[in-house]
């Protein structure tokens, strides 16, 4: 495992203000970090892990893959699966991190990109908090460094007046940094990553210094590939990443399971009355979504046009949740075709001209003829009229 980096680490950049707020009382946190929630599993893996570890990795690549995919260790410890999906994906992701390439996780919303990146960072570096959240307003300081202006004015430019970004800290300490929603970040700010990823160094021209990455530093970015973020990656930056696309659930059953589980959780938090027997309707919604997304019917016999929308699992969840609210508050408490029809229409028809034809065609050629779908057909016709 070759990790090329600067010869010696520069002194750690842990500024006074940076570390103070990280350790809240974890027991009370609404959502503990991955490394805290699964501390026992990580410890058990580390204890039994005798394979070679790349520099500054808490676990060997094999152990990291096991941590994500789940399994039973030699001493009987059960590792829960964190990611349910193709093994290949996790292997490529971990291997990418073990070489010194940065990892880009692509996928439509709701494919567990952030979840995977958090757990990868927790397993590799034991710390998933070195995070830059990408937004349209993310400034360059969030990726490089900022200044503590009080200190800057009082003492002039010095390392003490510097406020390090999570990326800078990760470089100095040989940790894994995370950038969420990379494509939401303005292009000029994105470009500041190029030097970091290719030269593995972060110059500080104001001080005539630089921070060189220590072995073990790497970066995981996530991005949305379907609705193409506002700022596409430049090819120069793209070249620095190995890309892994997280797929949508492979089987209809898996997707129905995910939707049902999430809908139940959301319904509880919104205090919606429990709705019995919604599973059939959920299955139909998931089937509609999958068929339109894949451009082919579930039996694989008829081709379909795909609409312009994403039709992700996350959207299926929101259609069902909306339908549940309708059924609970305005209907008879049972989730019926009429309750989801409007939501379906809204999710599928994003482009009023082209998508409407796609949807109509789908209704007329598939829904109309399917046994037991008459009610859905009628409800959708009414909703679309």
């Amino acid at each position, binding site marked *: 495992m070759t990790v090329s980096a600067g010869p010696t680490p520069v002194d750690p950049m842990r500024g006074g203000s940076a570390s103070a707020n990280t350790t809240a009382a974890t027991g009370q946190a609404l959502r503990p970090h991955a490394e805290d929630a699964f501390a026992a599993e990580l410890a058990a893996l580390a204890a039994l892990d005798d394979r070679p570890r790349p520099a500054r990795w808490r676990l060997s690549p*094999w152990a990291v893959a096991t941590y994500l995919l789940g399994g039973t260790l030699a001493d009987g410890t059960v590792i829960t699966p964190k990611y349910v999906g193709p093994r290949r994906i996790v292997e490529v992701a971990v291997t990418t991190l073990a070489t010194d390439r940065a990892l880009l996780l692509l996928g439509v919303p709701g494919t567990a990109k952030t979840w995977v990146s958090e757990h990868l960072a927790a397993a590799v570096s034991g710390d998933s908090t070195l995070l830059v959240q990408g937004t349209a307003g993310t400034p360059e300081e969030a990726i490089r460094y900022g200044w503590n202006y009080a200190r800057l004015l009082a003492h002039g430019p010095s390392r003490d007046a510097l406020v390090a970004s999570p990326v800078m800290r990760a470089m100095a300490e040989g940790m894994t940094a995370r950038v969420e929603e990379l494509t939401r970040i303005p292009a000029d700010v994105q470009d500041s990553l190029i030097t970091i990823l290719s030269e593995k160094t972060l110059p500080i021209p104001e001080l005539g210094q630089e921070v060189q990455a220590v072995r073990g530093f790497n970066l995981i970015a996530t991005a949305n590939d379907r609705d193409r973020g506002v700022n596409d990656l430049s090819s120069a930056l793209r070249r620095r990443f190995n890309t892994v696309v997280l797929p949508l659930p492979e089987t209809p059953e898996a997707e129905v399971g995910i939707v049902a589980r999430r809908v139940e959780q959301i319904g509880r938090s919104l205090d919606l009355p429990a709705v019995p027997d919604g599973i059939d309707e959920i299955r139909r919604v998931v089937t509609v979504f999958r068929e339109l997304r894949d451009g082919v019917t579930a039996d694989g016999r008829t081709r379909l046009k795909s609409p312009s929308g994403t039709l992700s699992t996350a959207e299926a969840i929101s259609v069902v949740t909306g339908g549940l609210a309708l059924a609970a508050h305005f209907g008879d408490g049972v989730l019926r075709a009429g309750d989801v029809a409007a939501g379906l229409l809204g999710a599928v028809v994003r482009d009023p001209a082209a998508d409407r034809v796609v949807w109509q065609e789908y209704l007329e050629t598939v829904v109309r003829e399917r046994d037991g779908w008459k009610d859905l057909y009628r409800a959708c016709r009414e909703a679309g009229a």
Partner: protein
Amino acid sequence: MSGVNGEEAPGPLLLGVRHHGPGSARAVRAVLEDARPDVVLVEGPPEADALIPLAGEEDMRPPVALLAHAVDEPGRSAFWPLAEFSPEWVAIRWALEHGVPARFIDLPATHTLAWQGEDGRDGGGGDGTDPATGSAEGDRGPGAAAPGAPDERSGAAPGEGARPAGDVRVDPLRVLAEAAGYDDAERWWEDVVEHRGVGKGDPVAPFTALEEAMTALREEHGSGEHERDLVREAHMRLRIRAARREFGEGVAVVCGAWHVPALRRRATVAADRALLKGLPRVRTDMTWVPWTNRRLSRASGYGAGIDSPGWYGHLFGARDRPVERWLTKVAGLLRAEDRIVSSAHVIEAVRLAETLAAMRGRPLPGLGETTDAVRAVMCEGSDVPLTLVHDRLVVGDALGEVPATAPAVPLQRDLARIQRRLRLRPEAAERELDLDLRGETDAERSRLLHRLRLLGVGWGEPAVSRGSTGTFRETWRLRWEPELSVRVAEAGVWGTTVLAAATARAEADAVAARGLAEVTGLAEHCLLAGLSEALPSVMRVLADRAALDTDVGHLAQALPALVRSLRYGDVRGTDTGALAGVAAGLAERVFVGVPPACTALDADAAEEMRGHIDAVHGAVGLLGDAPAPGHARLRARWQSVLRTLSARDTVPGVLRGRSVRLLLDDGELARDEAARLMGLVLSPGTSPADAAAWIEGFVGQGSGGGLLLVHDERLFGLVDAWLTGVPAEAFTDVLPLLRRTFSAYEPGVRRTLGELARRGPGTRGSTAVAPGQPGFAPGLDTARADAVLPVVRLLLGPDGEDEGAGAGAGVTG
């Protein structure tokens, strides 16, 4: 020569291989170089011994296949595909290069083909016309040995696989791989054998180890009570024995690893002879045929059972650094397709592939690792360019070549037979042939010529019939050019009979077709050629294309042709169930697509769309109301589409007028309602251009000319009433536009209309008289009309509809 088995006197050199395994091929070459045997025996049909020298010719280029077929029944055939990296091919080439005799030792094809005929009952190709199942079974099915296990798993061998012969016989490799802790047998084999370069040590060592494993396996699981295997092995033993008598001890045998323990076993000649007694026979013929990588891959019906011939070819051909070379090849391909792939990408991909292999505990990156690396580094995680890589490199487009001196392919024989039977001699002189399709012989001749055309053998060209125009007549211009024989030989790759080849070709063409119209044409051609077996695939492609085509115009163009085929297919008695379903589905898509496509059109586009609407209307009429299950009330749905069009203001006037007219003609729109709509359009609020367009659509030339106005009193009354009701000031605006519509009528029609107008509404009599003769009686003369009835009844048939005849006076066009 080094004895493989230490304890005995030097026995024959038994080299157990995996068919189409590049690692096995390398190892075989190394052993042959080292041992220099006096004769090389190869698993394969002995009838092909005479063909072996052809393998050494310049213009013989693998992949090729040995083809055995029954002389009297070309459809019954078996293939033995050989790629450049097949150990058998390597052995044959080595023998030829070193002037050493090479022989095939497997059971003769005469028996295996006879077996195949017996098995025909449980296979799909019972009539021997289905090369896909027929050949795949023959291909290594009867002959294939163990570690070529994918052969067996390709599943196309119904007679073999279905038998309770035990899993081991079906896939011994899997058993070994499971013992080694692998879940994927292919991968285990690659790790243990294929990816292992030929070491410095004893070249025979791997074969010894493999033989031990196979012996253990056969002891553990029994020899898999596979009678035919035992028979084949008996035959191989006899042949080996004969070779040893002739050449002494310098005998090398290349066969599937599964057979090695059986060939090593000592059995008496008598026992072996007894096994071979009384085997069925069939007269067979053999030849070399060109093969393709695609057919070597499992995906196709002829599968030789390897997923990745291109990758194997690369492994076999690469001198060193197979992974680096492979990824450079991939980069080259992607660059040629305009993707930006730099050398840095290749470097990173190599690193990723190697680290992945280490992570997965494999000695070298395999196809899986390199593919993962290509996806992550070069393709940005996308599977789309990866499909290209798989298609062009992993499978590859290699196309084999066979010297012209190779014996004739069975397709030629089949054609010659059919030509004899149909008394249709190939002649160089051009001549015309009139066919009456009602006769069985002529119908078959027509089908043969259509099939040959599909195969690119342009023996006959359809010509315009002289005199008769009935659909049961066809005229062909025949001329046999010498190069057509070459075409037939080329077409031999598609199948062994004309029917099978044309079917395969039509299916392949359908997949490759670019436009919807191309596929529709192909469907029509399939019907003409009587290729009912190809029709489902063609229809599938057609349905897929139709589903993805966003241009309603294309769909509307395809529909009439399809409906035509449907009706023509009825005439020929072809099963058109699938066709009807697709046509109905197509119609439904058109229904959905037409209304949005009819808005915001300029005059030209509207005119074009009117043509489409007319075509669809005609097609829906022909299609009937429920042509296929699940597609009911087509006509009613089309009418509701027309109603939508007629009522929508954003639709151009010409289309609205046309829709109203079509509805009116169908009796779906009351006359009052049509009059109201017309009044609405022609009122002062509507722009004159739009109004005139409406009239144009309603009674314009494309709508059947003015004749309809002449013959239909209702319509004439409507227009007449409107025209007289137009206010004086608006009249001058409307006049030029109306003139444009009416001036396009033929002079006779115009004159009649003038006469009718002069006489005024409601005073018309019979229109069955030539135009231009005024002075009809106002009422109907029933006596004279009755006199016509017998003739009309005669014309319309014995069940002549009294209704239609009774209204004879009012017969409308």
